[in-house]
């Protein structure tokens, strides 16, 4: 048996209204808003944020594998899953893999995770999906797409079981990108909708329904990925489902998040599900996967864990298109690139990615970065590894306009943080209005992409006002 032991989702804090985007270009706008990843976010950081929600209350040492699914992996040669494993402080004797090249990658990864557990090759596999797909400026794509992430922990036991994978493959040209294409491309959507989406999704879903002897009335929710809300509704009818049985795609408030979409929808569905519910999940992209989720028990509440709804409702509206363009790096800007080194990235990864500090055995002082000699009592080599808390308060701060030797009109908030459980750390604050920073303000830590020193992605921690707090 394979089950969902836990799950989590993440939506960047920023939103841009579709009317603002339309006005920027003088093109028609559709209702709603879309989520926009901050300049320091990417599919790895968003995936890790979702993974932390999923892993709340779960021992990292129990994870045997990580599958990372995205069509916008920050690396095309170098694994993203290994970065996730580093940040989550997983064991080293695990398997990590990236799944990519199709927005269907999340369910492909789910199927592979299922197979791994079913076959006895693993006891627990973490599936992480994230996307921030590049939309061509001055097109509707900018309005339609959204950024987000989800993570699902599959295991031998859990409140909901997963089974019945049915897949079909299809060589129809839906939205695509070649390796050197900058933006998502698409042909006339009708072709892919009719011969790709409809054909594949119906085939996979019907095959599953037949195998599991499910009639339309047996299905509590159909969780179907969709690039197009109308096609989504037609698919529901084709499968004999009523509108209330269709899980909301999140299009109005989020946009089409691509790879993580179906898992974000599944997370939202599970948040509302009750014991006995059967969820038929189907996901499209160069074919389709369908699988059945059967809810047997309520998922346990974990203190501090935030459901997708919190991320949906807790947001900041970007004032205009320019902010989006800046985050998406649509305009070339000169940016200071600090020095860096693959050597220090590797050697310091425990303290940088997994945020390990030290506690002195003699005097108990929690300190960071981990030293050889205790900063408080001067004892040498009597320190234990301790993971720093991910929450704290502002002890002091400054809003610094001088960054990399240049004067910037928007300052970077630099915070001396008093961590819960002891220790001080000095981090930038992100996802905030600098004017809101004050001494004593509660914070949480978030992993972000800092810069491209030495030509690779330098990930490290920042802090942010507590999301939803």
């Amino acid at each position, binding site marked *: 048996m394979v089950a969902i032991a836990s799950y989590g989702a993440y939506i960047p804090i920023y939103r841009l209204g579709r009317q603002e985007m339309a006005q920027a270009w003088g093109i028609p706008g559709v209702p709603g808003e879309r989520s926009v990843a901050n300049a320091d976010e990417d599919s790895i950081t968003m995936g890790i944020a979702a993974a932390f929600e999923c892993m709340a209350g779960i021992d990292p040492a129990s994870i045997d594998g990580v599958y990372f699914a995205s069509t916008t992996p920050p690396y095309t040669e170098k694994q993203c899953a290994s970065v996730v494993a580093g940040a989550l402080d997983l064991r080293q004797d695990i398997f990590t893999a990236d799944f990519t090249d199709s927005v269907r990658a999340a369910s492909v990864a789910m199927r592979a995770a299922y197979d791994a557990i079913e076959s006895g090759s693993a006891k627990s596999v973490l599936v992480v999906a994230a996307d921030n797909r590049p939309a061509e400026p001055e097109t509707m794509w900018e309005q339609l797409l959204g950024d987000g992430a989800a993570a699902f922990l599959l295991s031998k036991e859990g409140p909901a079981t997963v089974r019945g994978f049915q897949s079909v493959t299809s060589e129809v040209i839906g939205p695509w990108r070649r390796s050197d294409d900058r933006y998502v491309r698409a042909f006339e959507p009708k072709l892919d909708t009719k011969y790709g989406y409809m054909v594949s999704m119906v085939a996979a879903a019907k095959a599953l329904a037949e195998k599991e002897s499910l009639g339309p009335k047996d299905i509590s929710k159909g969780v179907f990925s969709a690039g197009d809300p109308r096609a989504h509704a037609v698919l529901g009818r084709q499968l004999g489902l009523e509108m209330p049985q269709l899980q909301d795609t999140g299009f109005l408030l989020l946009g089409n998040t691509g790879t993580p979409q179906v898992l974000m929808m599944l997370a939202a569905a599970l948040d509302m599900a009750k014991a006995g519910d059967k969820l038929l999940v189907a996901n499209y992209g160069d074919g389709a996967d369908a699988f059945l989720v059967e809810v047997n028990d309520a998922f346990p509440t974990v203190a501090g864990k935030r459901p997708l709804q919190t991320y949906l409702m807790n947001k900041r509206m970007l004032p205009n298109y320019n902010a989006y363009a800046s985050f998406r790096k649509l305009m070339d800007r000169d940016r200071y690139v*600090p020095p860096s080194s693959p050597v220090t990235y590797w050697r310091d990864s425990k303290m940088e990615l997994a945020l390990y500090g030290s506690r002195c055995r003699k005097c108990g002082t929690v300190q960071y970065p981990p030293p050889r000699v205790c900063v408080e009592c001067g004892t040498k080599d009597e320190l234990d590894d301790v993971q720093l808390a991910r929450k704290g308060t502002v002890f002091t701060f400054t809003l610094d306009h*001088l960054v990399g*030797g240049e*004067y910037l009109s928007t300052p970077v908030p*630099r915070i001396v943080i008093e961590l819960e459980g002891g220790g*001080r750390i000095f981090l930038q604050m992100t996802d905030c209005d600098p004017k809101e920073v004050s001494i004593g303000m509660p914070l949480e830590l978030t992993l972000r992409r800092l810069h491209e020193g030495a030509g690779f992605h330098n990930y490290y921690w920042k802090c942010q006002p507590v999301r939803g707090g």
Partner: protein
Amino acid sequence: MPGIKDRVAIAGVGCTKFGEIWEKDQEDLLVEAVYEALDDAGITPQDIEAAWVGVMYSFTGMSGGTFAEPMKLFGKPVTRVENFCASGMDAFRNACFAVAAGVYDIVVACGVEKLLDQGSSGLPMEGGHPVMGGTSAPGMFALAATRAFHEWGWTKEDLAHVAVKNHKNGVAHPKAHFRRAITVDDVLKAPMIASPLGRFDCCAMSDGAAALVVTRPEIAKTMKHKDDYVVAKANALAVDSTFPMWRPGFNWLGFPATKKAAAMAYEEAGIKDPRKEISFAEVHDCFTITELLNMGDLGFVDPSKAAEAVRDGMTEVEGDIPVNPSGGLKCFGHPIGATGCRMLYEVTKQLQGRADGMQVKDPVLGMAHNLGGPASVCSVTILGRHD
């Protein structure tokens, strides 16, 4: 007997104009400062037996060649000294040890920095940890200001009074970068750099060089300034953590490096009540907040009352204990390697009654104080008249 008290004399001093000296290079500045000091001492370059040169950045200089090359003095023992903003005074410190120990008779301690060759928006970035970053120089001290505002109720206006005082002094000094008076309003209206510090809370980016001829008192007695040479009463150095931002329990209300260096200097000089016994001080006012915190750390005033003391005029030239009669870093800028030597130049001339600008009345003991890095390195020198 430990220490250098009364065993080191300054026989001559030199200092260039400080400022945005685009048209001169580092060789120009160093040669001018050193030659002015040699002239003041009445000696020639060949009389120099050894030299120490304070310099912060590697683009400004590496190795003793930083001094030897421009001076064309080859084959002498020359050491490049770097200790953040205390580099220049640390060059003097090393010179003191050499002459006090009798290893050399006549040496030069100098410092130079051609900061503007690397642009002028904040200190040049050199090295640093890939991700565990610090912050800008103003940012580091701004962290202390934010805390002082929170704990002691200090305000931007309190900080502004420091800048106004120093500018008033700088107007009189022919070698200062800035020689124009400013008002509290000017300071409050200036663009923000690193909150709560605005542009006029920060010393400017400047070029400059300064030099001292250092010897023993018995030799100084035979030189040009035989009647009014100045002697070292104390020199102290204290290095505290370079990571205060990660220091568990650090309260940011003053800096341990200054407290420690001051204690050592006062002990060496035999000073029990600095407020009464120190006639004046050139302190490290890289930022207005720093001058206020220095006052407490140096024992001039109860730390939380420093802002009030400035408002009351305690540190004006006519006040109880003049601070930065030259105009300070605020008016001279801070070519890092040069600053410590410039302060010693100033303190020497004040004691000799021949200050270039504002003259402190009848000084007996003068202090020079530098605080570098994230307030990690502090050097304190106390000079006095030899009589």
